[in-house]
């Protein structure tokens, strides 16, 4: 399994001008394995962090190590990093350009210099993962619905078979059903491909249901880093940071005040119901 290590990373925008912004401060992280969620406000540095992983942004100081190798030591590594950490940006459907869905998904693999056969194999596999149906492959991506476009854009990155699939707000603007569909698809992809997934999102409910590990950022720093249970059990701190916790976590703490303690690590409805049930049986 591959690993990305950020070592003492700082990132400063507009350095030396009056508009200087210190976006990331002394970040030390090891990323790899499972589905990792990164949460934080707009301006907490999470989007900058994501762009460091595939070399779109260069740290002002510190190192980004991909399997122990410094990304910025050799220029060819930066380009390779694009393919190793595949980034799906926010509202990726706005970046579709090709005349057919197939061509658009093939853009990444072709840039990797793969053979035509391999490109074809990857495109079809990626389409399957992203739930793009085979009969739209020859249609123009601009004729599809919003949700379909989003999945085509997702397939375009999956087709590069990146060791890390990095997604910035993959479900933004979708209705609850489409959210479940796309996030469920990502979870399934993680399981079948074995590649690591990193999701950046505002939605605590989604993060709680889909992530194995959560990193909380604020003011350019990592504030918390741990399992969902660990992070959401510190709900008061999260609220203090102006972040929301899932409503069910609020309910659990309100229940505790009524004398019904089902634990501090409640963050999904299913788990809460289970705990309530066993609480009643015990009582």
């Amino acid at each position, binding site marked *: 399994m591959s690993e990305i290590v950020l070592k003492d990373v700082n990132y400063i925008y507009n350095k030396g001008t009056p508009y200087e912004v210190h976006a990331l401060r002394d970040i030390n992280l090891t990323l790899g394995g499972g589905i990792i969620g990164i949460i934080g*406000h*707009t301006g907490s540095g999470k989007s900058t962090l994501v762009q460091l992983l595939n070399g779109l942004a260069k740290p002002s100081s510190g190192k980004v190590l991909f399997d122990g190798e410094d990304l910025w030591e050799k220029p060819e590594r930066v380009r390779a990093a694009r393919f190793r950490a595949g980034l799906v940006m926010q509202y990726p459907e706005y970046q579709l350009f090709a005349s057919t869905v197939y061509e658009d998904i093939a853009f990444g693999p072709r840039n990797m210099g793969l053979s035509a056969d391999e490109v074809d194999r990857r495109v079809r596999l990626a389409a399957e993962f992203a739930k793009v149906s085979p009969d739209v492959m020859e249609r123009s991506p601009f*004729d599809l*619905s*919003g*949700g379909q476009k989003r999945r085509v854009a997702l397939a375009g990155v999956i087709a590069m078979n990146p060791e890390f699939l990095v997604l910035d707000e993959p479900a*933004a*603007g*979708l*209705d*609850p*059903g*489409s959210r479940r569909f796309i996030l469920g698809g990502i979870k399934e992809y993680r399981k079948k491909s074995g590649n690591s997934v990193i999701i950046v999102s*505002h939605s605590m*409910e989604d993060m709680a249901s889909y992530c194995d590990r959560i990193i909380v950022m604020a003011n350019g720093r990592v504030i918390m880093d741990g399992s969902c249970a660990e992070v959401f059990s510190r709900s008061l701190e999260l609220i203090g940071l*102006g*972040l*929301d916790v*899932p*409503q*069910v976590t*609020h*309910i659990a*703490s*309100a*229940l505790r*005040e*009524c*004398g*019904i303690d089902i634990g501090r690590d409640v963050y999904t*409805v*299913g788990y*809460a*119901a289970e705990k*309530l*049930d066993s*609480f*009643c049986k015990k*009582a």
Partner: protein
Amino acid sequence: MKNAIEVKDLSFTYEGYGDSPDVTALRDVSFTVPEGSFTAILGHNGSGKSTLASILCMLEEPGSGEVIIYGKRMTGEDVTDEDIFEARRRVGMVFQNPDNQIVATVVEEDVAFGCENLGIPSAEIRKRVDAALDTVGMRKYARHSPHKLSGGQKQRVAIAGVIAMKRDCIIFDESTAMLDPLGRRDVMETIEKLNHEDGVTVILITHYMEEASRADKIIVLDGGRVLTEGTPAEVFSDPEKLWEASLDVPQSTELLYRMKKAGYDVRLDIFDAEGCAAEISRAIEKRRGKRV
């Protein structure tokens, strides 16, 4: 109570171009929006909610059925441009993408834009713009460039532009969809304030169940039809139906629903955490009582 908007048997079809077939966006939709009420419209992507919004703002002509805005029928042959202008003067809209509805390069100029179109005297516009910016809490950004504001701030500027025109009814077409949680909270607070304090009729189109749960009435659209309609308590009492329509219910309702299925005697119409906890503890007490 008088109705701000009445919709009767409204249908709408997008004509297909080339080989693509016609798409029916709305089928026999009927509902009323009383003056001063807060109505939420829920529905998955492509359920027809945006089409409905554009018909209510006179941007699309309905295929069949009636739309009555403040007592004036807006469908049929005899509707004049003046009628449309008058309806637009009373019913405003705030769109989804905050960037694509701001016209001017200075916040206050943008807020003034609508008033200028109405031909209001300069001094009066000035007063209205300042008041509108106060209402949405953006007065200190009056001279700023909208480009540098956050999404939530841009939406509040857009709302100020609508209220400066003294609209009686505002339609929010997924206006919170592109915002982060803080921006969403600010915009929702502004919307509720307009509804509660200034008596503005609000129609909120949204994907977020917790936003819809704050409305007086929810209309759920599915495949262009009204799937269900009622108070949040009524609508959310049937989670299965909403899940099937690609929607959701607030987590409180979902938890209570699971409790109910497990045989507990709980109400489903509670949307706040404290109330939900109280209801659960009451049900548990009750069951224990029985056992003893």
